[in-house]
């Protein structure tokens, strides 16, 4: 069984990637928009998964970092800068702000940290709304251009979907690298047992700040793509409810699982579309589904899978032990 597991996983991964590239080719404009939105939200949720899922630092401010990235991108690209430069600025800016927001986490944890980040979220929203000389205030910023890459325009939905998908691929690889590096192990140690981590030389201060900064930077990347995706931004999408949505994506998908954010973003972005036939009942159904899921499996959807696999491994191991024991008895 385990002999085939790795090639099977690779084949499945390639099939999903091929599907994401080929299937949307005959999607309509709206379908492509939804799928692009999924890619963008996956990036933001992956950032939060790093901060919350791996490093265990609660944040209710991820939506604000999407906003910071979106405004940086909108302001720069409407002034003629290319999108890659805007993404870079969005990364640097949200990394720096995320680093600073990490400082309270060195003193407060859990619910208290949630409140600190919630306050920051509100603050960011007020800046987006009130500093109209920079952000256009409640009128927002419109006519945000989509980029040209090597002479190819991406202003049609399909090419821009590929821009989002390509960015998601790059971020996914980077995050995969990060979590299997010693940093990923240190983040996990920070979440599981900070006291022991310190005694093993793990600089918990620095890793806490890094967890915040990197997670926030990914929020910035998502925002920098969100602006050219919608081509118009105002402060409303970046209020607290986006932070809560992103938190929900991470929790529902499975916090601390690599594929959790992809799944969580899929549910949060696509489920409303699938449940459209229920008309006004969509939100109620969604709420009930989330409640039931979290009662059944507090570790999210991937938590269910993880439990199932762990059980199977235990069963296989005890079967092996039984066989070994019976052989031993036969020999005697």
């Amino acid at each position, binding site marked *: 069984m385990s002999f085939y597991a790795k090639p099977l996983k690779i084949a499945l991964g390639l099939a999903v990637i091929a599907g994401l590239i080929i299937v949307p080719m005959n999607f309509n404009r709206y379908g492509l928009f939804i799928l692009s939105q999924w890619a963008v939200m996956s990036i933001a949720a992956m950032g939060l998964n790093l901060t919350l899922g791996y490093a265990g630092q609660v944040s209710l401010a991820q939506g604000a970092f999407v906003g910071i990235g979106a405004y940086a991108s909108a302001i720069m690209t409407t002034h003629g800068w290319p999108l890659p430069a805007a993404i870079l600025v969005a990364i640097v800016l949200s990394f720096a702000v995320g680093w600073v927001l990490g400082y309270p986490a060195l003193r407060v944890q859990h619910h208290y940290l949630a409140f600190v980040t919630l306050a920051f979220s509100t603050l960011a929203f007020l800046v987006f709304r009130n500093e109209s000389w920079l952000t256009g205030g409640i009128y927002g910023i419109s006519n945000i251009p989509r980029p040209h890459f090597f002479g190819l325009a991406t202003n049609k939905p399909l090419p821009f979907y590929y821009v989002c998908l390509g960015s998601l691929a790059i971020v996914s690889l980077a995050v995969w690298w*990060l979590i*299997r*590096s*010693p*940093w990923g*192990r*240190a983040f*996990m*140690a920070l979440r*599981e*047992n900070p*006291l*022991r981590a*310190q*005694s*093993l*030389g*793990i*600089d*918990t*201060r*620095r890793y806490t700040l890094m967890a915040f900064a990197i997670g926030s930077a990914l929020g910035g990347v998502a925002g920098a793509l969100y602006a050219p995706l919608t081509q118009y931004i105002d402060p409303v999408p970046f209020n607290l409810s986006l932070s809560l949505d992103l938190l929900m994506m991470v929790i529902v998908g499975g916090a601390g699982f690599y594929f959790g954010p992809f799944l969580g973003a899929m549910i949060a972005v696509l489920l409303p579309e699938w449940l459209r036939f229920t008309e006004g009942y969509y939100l109620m159904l969604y709420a009930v589904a989330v409640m039931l899921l979290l009662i059944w499996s507090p570790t999210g959807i991937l938590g269910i899978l993880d439990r199932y696999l762990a059980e199977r491994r235990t069963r296989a191991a005890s079967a092996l032990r039984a066989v070994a024991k019976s052989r031993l008895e036969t020999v005697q």
Partner: protein
Amino acid sequence: MSAVLEVTDIKKSFGGIHAVNGVSFDVREGEILGLIGPNGCGKSTLFNCILGQLTPSGGEVKLDGKAVTGLRPAELNKLGVSRTFQLLQVFPKLSVRENLILAGQEHQGNMASRLVGRSDAGLTDAANQMIGFFKLDHLADEPAGGLSYGQQKLLDAAMAFMGGPRLVLLDEPAGGVNPSMLADLKDRLVAINREKNATFVVIEHNMEFVMSLCSRVMVMAEGKVLAMGRPDEVRKNPAVIEAYLGH
């Protein structure tokens, strides 16, 4: 023999309670110093003050003659001071090998190399050696949470040695460990002490374990040092008998 650790007049109070009330001692290079005393006499608080987990209310800690009072635990660990805790502190979801890699990784390279370099920080061989040394070979890939209590205790101790420390403070390593595994543990500690020239301070209630392992024993009572000396001397000390047996 020079002193690795010098502790001078360390005090720690919680409100009106003087948990540690002016303790001074030194630990000589290569020795195994036992630290015993009734429950609540301040042994663990003293450890936490030395290791920077608590800020002492007064006094000084010197490592190799340099003041290290008030350094953070991670900084002290980088200087070669390691510890185990009274309660088990392994990472249950990580495998035995990964626990050991985690325990050593911050002693390899710098922040940047730990990000872009190898995911095992080049420690797989060292971890395997440690696994072999503590006879945990058959469990190397098991999640640490699935091990028996005694095995986790061994892993916990092994983790303290991954960074190649000069000084290790062990807080009740024998607590809850069955006799045969205890013999293993003692054997391994003595081997590391001799081969790596690592210096130990061991808090322990198991008298037999302390008396046979340690070259010197310090006895604490009510936040103060009651006696210090060779195990056989301390055992005969009337003040020690008094503190242990009560009035």
